């Protein structure tokens, strides 16, 4: 049994939390500590274990960039107890066999529950539906389907996918990118793309798909989730769709909450990501959207790449940034320290809501008696300067090198077992 | 370096010792003009090339005197030696001065004109530059001041004034065309 002493629950009241057998057994003041393990929670806040709806773990296929084990270690260090592993692996997670393998690798590593995302179409090719039902029925129990990295651009295919997953409560997580409008696209289309001579990725290419998909989801009465929404226009479209009562949810990444396309001036591909970093106005819009609930969740889009895919010219470089270990800090800096969100709302955006969208039963639960003991302890008063080598990930492609970020994850509990304690990884809790 | 504050005996602020005033300089240039004409019989086949910046103005003054004597216009030229210097890598890049060769130098007698002759390195560079322009019959050198301290086997054919100096001293030539003050040659510093 473990007792966490004097921690601020959701950043509010100071309480003690007792954990036993993977379950929260008591929440109150002055709980008896006896000879139990005691974790001093003074100055820390307790949040439900974070849930990431959008993580690239790269295994199988690119074990040089990340493995399920290293990716979930990074997740635990970031305060996550559940991550959704994207389907664009090699082979693609488009069959029950691959999703079960990924799910098992997660259980064996024991740092974080891995909930595989299934591909919408075979090989992400956008031509034929993958066996969505088989993946849903597998041990992995897939509920989120996405061709992330590619857009399901064919309107008929998208309609069918949205319809089909209704049978098992699934959701289509769309990577909204109109392919013809973004051929060869390298960065946000705007003044800077013209100046830098880099092919633009227009906001319209995202917004056109978001609008189409909202209408399609409403038409067939299904659930749509918009991945890594990045523009003011997309926020407005989703707001409109929600006002109609349509079942549309959306995510924003930490980097789209903080960084702008001005960074591309350096031509350093560490800032190359898809969708691209947008304008300061878009950043303001996604912050507002996250604050007012238009955007439901923060998802990391943690995308590890080996050094050689970033140490090159901009066009040749890979898209993507790692982000599991910095997500909560970036959200604190952009949303909490600015007064846009309370910690209770952060718990909703980073745990409760993503668990609900992903239909993950044991995560995103309140910190209350009888609930699974998935808890993160976080020190919001700490600060740190990001050092790329200080990561559990196999990759180093963080855009925050040298940035001072607030906060630090002190401990992460997965079903009552510490995966991180005193800021350091433990041995994990292999199933 | 015009200073409004009183010089408090700091090195480099001494006004220097005037060794040639405007009359002396004028007289020296007139003498050099006559010596050049004498040595070369007349101005036929002569090309006067000043080395920027002050050498160009001195060449112009000599050419004017020569034109008077000869009764026809003699056009001097300018030969920038920056690209031929042997000390380019010792400092920040230098801006180029204007080169203007009034006449083909092949088979001509070129008279190089400079203000001060010391190490001889400038003249070495000028000889190299000249060799790339053509093949003069002869090259002669006229300087307003020869202060010694040669580092190369080079000597002047026409000298306004021999001025024995120490290496710590600086010889400043001022010409009204560019320095906006009366012509003078001064020796500055050196006492420290």
């Amino acid at each position: 049994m473990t007792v966490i002493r004097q921690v601020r629950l959701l950043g509010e009241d100071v309480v003690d939390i007792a954990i036993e057998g993977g379950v929260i057994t008591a929440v109150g003041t002055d709980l008896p500590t006896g000879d139990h393990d005691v974790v001093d929670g003074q100055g820390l806040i307790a949040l439900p274990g974070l849930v990431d709806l959008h993580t690239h773990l790269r295994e199988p296929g690119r074990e040089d960039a990340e493995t399920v084990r290293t990716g979930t270690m990074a997740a635990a260090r970031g305060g996550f107890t559940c991550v959704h592993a994207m389907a664009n692996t090699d082979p693609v997670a488009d069959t029950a066999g691959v999703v079960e393998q990924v799910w098992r690798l997660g259980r064996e590593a024991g740092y974080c529950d891995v909930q595989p995302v299934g591909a919408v179409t075979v090989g992400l090719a956008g031509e034929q539906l993958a066996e969505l039902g088989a993946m849903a029925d597998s041990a992995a129990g897939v509920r989120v389907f996405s061709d992330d990295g590619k857009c399901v651009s064919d309107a008929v295919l998208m309609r069918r996918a949205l319809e089909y997953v209704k049978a098992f409560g699934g959701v289509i997580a769309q990577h909204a990118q109109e392919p013809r409008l973004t051929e060869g696209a390298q960065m946000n289309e705007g003044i800077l793309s013209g100046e830098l001579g880099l092919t633009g990725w227009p906001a319209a290419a995202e917004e056109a798909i978001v609008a189409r998909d909202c209408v399609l989801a409403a038409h067939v009465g299904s659930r749509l989730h918009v991945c890594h929404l990045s523009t003011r226009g997309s926020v407005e479209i989703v707001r409109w769709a929600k006002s109609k009562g349509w079942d549309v949810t959306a995510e924003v990444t930490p980097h789209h909450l903080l960084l702008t396309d001005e960074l591309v001036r350096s031509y350093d591909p560490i800032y190359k990501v898809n969708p691209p970093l947008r304008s300061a106005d878009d950043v303001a819009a996604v912050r507002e959207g996250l604050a007012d609930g238009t955007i439901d969740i923060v998802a990391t889009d943690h995308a590890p790449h080996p050094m050689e895919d970033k140490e090159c010219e901009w066009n040749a470089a890979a898209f993507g940034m790692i982000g599991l270990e910095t997500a909560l800090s970036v959200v604190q800096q952009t949303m909490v320290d600015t007064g846009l969100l309370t910690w209770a709302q952060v718990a909703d955006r980073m745990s409760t809501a993503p668990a609900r969208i992903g239909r993950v039963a044991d995560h995103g639960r309140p910190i209350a008696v009888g609930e699974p003991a998935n808890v993160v302890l976080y020190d919001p008063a700490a600060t740190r300067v990001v050092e790329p080598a200080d990561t559990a990930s196999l990759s180093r492609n963080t855009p925050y090198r040298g940035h001072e970020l607030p906060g630090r994850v002190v401990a992460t509990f997965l079903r009552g077992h510490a995966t991180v304690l005193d800021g350091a990884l433990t041995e994990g809790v292999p199933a | 370096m015009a200073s409004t504050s009183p010089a408090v005996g700091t090195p480099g602020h001494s006004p220097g010792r005037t060794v040639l005033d405007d009359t002396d300089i004028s007289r020296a240039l007139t003498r050099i003009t006559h010596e050049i004409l004498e040595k070369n019989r007349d101005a036929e086949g002569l090309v006067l090339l000043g080395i920027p910046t002050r050498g160009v103005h001195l060449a112009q003054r000599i050419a004017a005197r020569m034109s008077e004597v000869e009764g026809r216009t003699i056009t001097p030229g300018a030969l920038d030696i920056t690209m031929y210097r042997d000390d380019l890598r010792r400092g920040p890049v230098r801006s180029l001065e204007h080169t203007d060769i009034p006449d083909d130098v092949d088979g001509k007698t070129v008279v190089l004109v400079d203000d001060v002759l010391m190490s001889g390195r400038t003249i070495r560079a000028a000889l190299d530059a000249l060799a790339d322009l053509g093949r003069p019959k002869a090259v002669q050198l006229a300087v307003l001041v020869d202060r010694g301290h040669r580092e190369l086997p080079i000597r002047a054919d026409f000298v306004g004034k021999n001025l024995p100096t120490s290496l710590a001293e600086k010889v400043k030539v001022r010409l009204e065309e560019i320095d906006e003050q009366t012509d003078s040659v001064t020796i500055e510093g050196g006492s420290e």
Partner: protein
Amino acid sequence: MKHLLSAGDLTHEDALRILDTAEELLGVAKRPIKKLPTLRGRTVVNLFFEDSTRTRISFEAAAKRLSADVINFSAKGSSASKGEGLKDTALTLQAMGADAVVVRHHHSGAPHRLAHAEWTKGAVINAGDGTHEHPTQALLDAFTMRRHLNDGVGDLAGKNITIVGDVLHSRVARSNALLLHTLGAHVTLVAPPTLLPVGVEHWPVETSYDLDASLEKADAVMMLRVQRERMNASFFPSAREYSRRYGLDTARMNRLPEHAIVMHPGPMNRGMEISADVADSGRSVIVEQVTNGVAVRMAVLYLLVGGSTEGDTE
């Protein structure tokens, strides 16, 4: 100035210094010995990831006239077509002791990356990167304009320069717009709306969709190469329509002021953006642009590596 990556990095003073230096160096081409000893012992590497014989030859001639050792490195089709090639190539050049690296690359920003990733200590000169910039082309264009419009001295204050064609894909147009603005000229970019970049309204230029409207006040007209492939990507309907609306033919040329010059960075599509008559007319300074290119590149090389450099102090 350590590198020359963008024409926008040049101050008015920098630009004039380059043009004035080039003016002095132009004479070297007319001398019996077309060579200066200035860069003896310096190594200039021409690193070309994209074919461009004319630009490479121009830089090669410039470096050789300054007595530099020239190494031509054509990386096209080699392993360098993969991204990691840039870093490894740079490290090789560093080991060879390159004092200046002239980079031509099909990707925008590659020279910038080479200069700032600290893979090489040499001065990096952008010889054209993707659809970004081509600063030495802009310098030689400005140099040519200054000779014709301002007797080879000073800047281009108050001159009206019209640049016509595929601005969207043109590194020449970008560099020219920036440099000509620095030099005080009024620049008008003329193109169909599809071939103007997003955000061009924030550039220090005017834009127009109508070529005829800007001819009468132009002191110089620069025609940009328009690739016929653009037509397939629907940037314009047909070569014929493009040529009719945006091509410079004799009738249009005759509407230019008497003193106005016609320029083209080459290679030309005769019959497309410029008619053969215009290209070969007395107003065309296209051949002269090539000659001036060598002098301008000599000036750039001299000003970047002619003095003491980082390598000398070691």
